[in-house]
């Protein structure tokens, strides 16, 4: 017995250190070449293929009607003209500023609403199903009533964005909270995190993955509803956003302007997602070890 008494204490420490080293995975950043080949190259190739096929349709006269399909050069010319006239950034900014401001409003309303629905049983039973149902209602359906109630101005745009985005954000938070493992709540309670403290330190951070997924979807819905509203409700007072540009192109029977507008709408949607929401989501998932590196 005496021999073990002197032997175990320092020994256990060094064995443990060895075991820790054995069981800790070594991870590093992939080299740039690998990122380039796996992440950057594929979309560039895909875009190039689309352009080549498009140009081939024109060059080989398979589609020989510029009012149906303009050439890539015509659309490029449209972009160049708008840029030289100094209008291109204006179109983008009119829509993006509306979209982002509307999204921030939606965030400010959707978050407390989601918390209420998730935590108060009566509220959940009362409006939970409606909130989920609203997600499947195309937000373009809100444009006519919004125009009638609020008139043709920015308020109507924001109303349509809110009705599109708030349900997504609130629902994301609700499902995030519903999926918090009960073990975390028990662990929190034994540490004294109950009530508001528990909500702040345990429930909200634990629900963050679901919440960010809701934000991402909320942005997509904001942008889609805004475009619908801009296409349907155009008025000189509203300025020319991307939706109005599309509608103007149709009125002027200029297919290259229509293409310009569609590309811009796609581009902005993708850019905001890539610059804001995807990094946010990746950061949340990676810091929890939920992101499997592919």
């Amino acid at each position, binding site marked *: 017995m005496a021999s073990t008494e002197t032997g175990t204490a320092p020994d256990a420490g060094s064995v443990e250190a060895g075991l820790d080293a054995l069981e800790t995975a070594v991870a590093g950043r992939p080299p740039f070449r690998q990122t380039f080949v796996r992440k950057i190259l594929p979309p560039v190739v895909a875009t190039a293929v689309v352009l080549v096929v498009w140009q081939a349709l024109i060059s080989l006269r398979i589609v020989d009607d510029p009012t149906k399909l303009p050439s890539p050069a015509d659309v490029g010319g449209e972009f160049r003209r708008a840029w030289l006239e100094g209008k291109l950034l204006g179109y983008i900014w009119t829509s993006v500023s509306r979209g982002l401001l509307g999204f921030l409003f939606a965030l400010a309303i959707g978050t407390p609403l989601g918390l209420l629905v998730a935590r108060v049983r009566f509220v959940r039973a009362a409006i939970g199903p409606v909130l989920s149902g609203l997600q499947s209602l195309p937000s373009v359906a809100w444009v006519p009533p919004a125009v009638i109630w609020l008139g043709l101005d920015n308020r109507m745009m924001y109303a349509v964005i809110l009705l599109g985005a708030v349900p997504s954000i609130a629902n994301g938070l609700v499902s995030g909270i519903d999926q918090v493992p009960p073990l975390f709540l028990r662990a929190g309670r034994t540490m004294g995190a109950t009530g508001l403290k528990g909500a702040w*330190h345990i429930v909200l951070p634990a629900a963050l993955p679901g919440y960010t997924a809701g934000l991402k979807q909320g942005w997509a819905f904001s942008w889609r509803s805004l475009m619908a509203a801009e296409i349907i409700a155009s008025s000189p007072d509203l300025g020319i956003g991307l939706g109005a540009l599309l509608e103007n192109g149709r009125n002027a029977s200029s297919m290259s302007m229509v293409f310009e507008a569609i590309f811009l709408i796609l581009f902005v949607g993708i850019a905001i997602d890539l610059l804001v929401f995807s990094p946010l989501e990746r950061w949340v998932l990676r810091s*929890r070890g939920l992101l499997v590196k592919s």
Partner: protein
Amino acid sequence: MATALAKAEQAQTVEYAARIERVSKSFAGPAGQQLVLDDISLDVAPGEFVTLLGASGCGKSTLLNLVAGLDRPTTGSIATHGRPALMFQEHALFPWLTAGKNIELALRLKGVPRAERRGRAERLLELVRLQGAYGKRVHELSGGMRQRVAMARALAQDSRLLLMDEPFAALDAITRDLLHDELTRIWTETGLSVLFVTHNVREAVRLAQRVVLLSSRPGRVAREWRVDIPQPRRIEDAPVAELSLEITEVLRGEIRRHGQH
């Protein structure tokens, strides 16, 4: 060790870390009220290490939840000094925080001022021999390391009683052996009282000063053993094996009763 035992026994008459008095617990089941714990009385003395041993259905985890204050007994009473710390079979560390911040959250909820938290968290990590792990995320740690961080977080609550609900059951045998050594060392260094639930007889004997065997359905205190083998013990030691054999026989007898009707 002998003096520590004597001290613990002496203290038992005047004080306790946990006093469980005539506690029963029943849950509403499909066949009406189901009695899970039946008239359990048990004291844990200050600085004492007690293991609760039992087969499935003995309600040992239920009892631990009652002591932790996560649930209330149907009848009887439980007294502790302040809120006990609780460790689970799963590490239950928060994945959105680093190892160090997990410990600091416990300190913060305990009301420790911000300026002291970092230093105390680092000292606690040293205590579980993880000095380099402060900034590590939970998923970057091995199973054994996670349980040690969980132990440090439980210790951060600074309660006199540590409740452990099969904390090593999900670990591999090599890691489990090491964590037994660590737990014994930390218990000796801190003078904590520990109530440790397990279904592993050797683990119970390896760690405890007192082994309490619970019978199943409903859980009752079936028998108790004092373990006077000096620490640090090893799970392979002959006296540990001998006592384990004796306890296993009684445990099997308890289990056998359920197959007879």
